């Protein structure tokens, strides 16, 4: 038991990786057990992530060095910079890790019924486990090149999963191609920026680099290269073209996990801006660029969502718009980072709102995508004009959809209200116009979800949907767990903000704690 706890940063990744490699061997013996096997492994990962979260929040950031004599030995005898690859889990990393663990476990359980006895089922589960490993690696690592490798692992696994239904239809293959080209280009530009850092400082470790960075001309070029491509991977406007296609053509549980993967790229952007550069860069300019990305994403996302006919494409545009909220909150926090009075007054609150919105968005957007998948599973269509009157036959799905739609629109007592209120209050003190745009976008979000609810669920029962029943048990289980989390976060938001979100924000803002863990108490 002690071995498990001490090595937990790596076992959270290594057990799904071992399972992903064993699944082709298991499926030769017995084809039907691969789904339950992968759900079991992801459940073990979820339990270990919760234990590690308790340890990180009570004790402090954990470091795990690969291949050293002991797991905390960052600077072996006599050296002054860390050499080996290490995982560094602080409060922000474990916050994203909790989101990833929950979302992939519920996605695997949902897939037990959604992908049952289809051809290539073993490859589906193997790729799902690889995507989870890639996301965990992006969130736990403390080394820049290691981050690039895990980013590519997650991209390649998700392209193969998006094009999964391409055996029978042509559109998923086109969506997969677009996503592969976009993620290839962004990963290569990230590698170019890592090359610039290595050529200038001869270091690849984030904490060691943060100690030495000087913001010379080359560092400005690296920041200017990294900021747009990491925003492109998370779906910010004006680089959002891949988001509607990829999110709508993937199978429903994979879309939920893809949302978490886009948020892992957003986490990497925040980690580079706050822990690597911090006040050495020009935080006002960088903050305003992120605020502009955020406001554009919010507005364009929701206006393009109102006119859609395909239910998953509509929800994908809403995902773009909600990413704008996160960028707005964190951008305001970044812009006042060098100004201690403003930081204490509203900067920390806006950072808390942005970061809390990441977790809320993963939960309610995941629930909405799962209900859209349930509708597709029973009716065979995603077009809103062809659906109607489904509330008579699918009662549980209707209730879960109402909970998800109320959460995304920001109605109390669901969790969207808590994080949006934090963002509105603090951004108003920075610049009132931005806050008013955010509130207008929230009203338009509610309008488009009323439209979806009316088209799909209300109305008389249509004759071609006469024998539509409720979806199977495992799908109802996943949706029910997400609804319970949404209601719990909405009723007790200060529990979550004090225990999870506030340590994460302070871990981002204080760069000294990040470098001190690795370089030994400077």
């Amino acid at each position, binding site marked *: 038991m002690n071995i498990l706890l001490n090595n937990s940063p790596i076992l959270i990744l290594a057990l799904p990786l071992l399972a992903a490699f064993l699944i082709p061997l298991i499926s030769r013996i017995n084809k039907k057990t691969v789904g339950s096997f992968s759900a079991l492994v992801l459940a073990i990962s979820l339990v270990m992530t919760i234990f590690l979260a308790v340890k990180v929040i009570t004790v402090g950031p954990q470091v795990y060095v690969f291949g050293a004599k002991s797991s905390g030995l960052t600077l072996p005898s006599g050296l002054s910079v860390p050499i080996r690859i290490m995982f560094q889990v602080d409060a922000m990393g474990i916050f994203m890790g909790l989101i990833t663990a929950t979302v992939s476990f519920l996605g695997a359980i949902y897939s037990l019924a959604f992908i049952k006895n289809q051809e290539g089922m073993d490859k589906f589960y193997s790729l799902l486990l690889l995507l989870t490993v890639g996301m965990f690696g992006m969130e736990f690592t403390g080394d820049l090149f290691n981050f690039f490798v895990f980013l590519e692992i997650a991209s390649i696994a998700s*392209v193969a999963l998006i094009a999964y239904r*391409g055996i029978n239809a042509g*559109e998923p293959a086109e969506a997969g191609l677009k996503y592969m080209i976009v993620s290839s280009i962004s990963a290569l530009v990230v590698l170019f920026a890592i090359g610039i850092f*290595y050529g200038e400082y001869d270091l690849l470790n984030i904490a060691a680099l943060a100690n030495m960075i000087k913001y010379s001309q080359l560092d400005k070029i690296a920041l200017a290269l990294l900021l747009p491509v990491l925003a492109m991977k998370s779906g910010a406007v004006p680089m959002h073209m891949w988001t509607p296609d990829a999110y709508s053509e993937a199978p429903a549980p994979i879309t939920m996990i893809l949302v978490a993967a886009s948020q892992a790229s957003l986490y990497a952007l925040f980690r580079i801006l706050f822990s690597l550069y911090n006040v050495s860069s020009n935080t006002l300019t960088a903050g305003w660029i992120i605020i502009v990305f955020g406001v554009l994403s919010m507005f364009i996302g929701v206006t393009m969502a109102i006119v859609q006919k395909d239910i998953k494409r509509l929800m994908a545009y809403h995902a773009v718009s909600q990413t704008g909220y996160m960028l707005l909150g964190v951008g305001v926090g970044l812009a006042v980072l060098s100004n201690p009075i403003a930081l204490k007054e509203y900067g920390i609150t806006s950072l808390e709102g942005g970061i809390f919105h990441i977790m809320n968005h993963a939960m309610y957007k995941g629930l909405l995508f799962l209900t859209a998948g349930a509708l597709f599973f029973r009716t065979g269509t995603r077009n809103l004009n062809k659906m109607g009157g489904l509330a008579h036959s699918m009662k549980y799905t209707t209730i879960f959809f109402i909970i998800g739609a109320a959460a995304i629109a920001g109605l109390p007592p669901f969790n969207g209200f808590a994080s949006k209120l934090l963002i509105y209050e603090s951004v108003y003190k920075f610049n009132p116009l931005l806050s008013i745009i955010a509130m207008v976008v929230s009203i338009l979000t509610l309008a488009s979800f009323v439209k979806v609810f009316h088209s799909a669920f209300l109305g008389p029962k249509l004759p071609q949907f006469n024998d539509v029943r409720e979806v199977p048990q495992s799908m109802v289980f996943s949706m029910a767990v997400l609804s319970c989390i949404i209601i719990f976060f909405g009723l007790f938001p200060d529990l979550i903000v004090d225990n999870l979100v506030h340590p994460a924000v302070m871990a981002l803002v204080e760069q000294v704690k990040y470098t001190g863990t690795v370089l030994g108490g400077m």
Partner: protein
Amino acid sequence: MIDNLPYIAVAIFIGLGIYTLMYKKNLIKIAIGICLIENGVNLFLITLGYRKGAVAPIYTMAPSGQSMVLPTPQALTLTSIVIGIATTALILSVVMMIYKHYGTLDTDEIRRLRG
């Protein structure tokens, strides 16, 4: 000036790759464009490790007492080449799937997802 020649080659590779991605319509040419950008970035990584008058970092066949080129960028480049092979294989497989459904490789006729 002669020392900067690899960096000029990197700029030419990446420029040609971006031109191919933006202006060509055949899907195989787009895959080749991505390969060009990737080759440019790999060349950039290897050139960073060069030291003047040094030999390859192999103990088995080096003359003794001479300085060696940095080996770490070579490990980074090797990892990047492996990832590039996986990317190229996946892009070509998806192109094969598109050809099987639509019968053409022209991007103007394949676009069905709009709006």
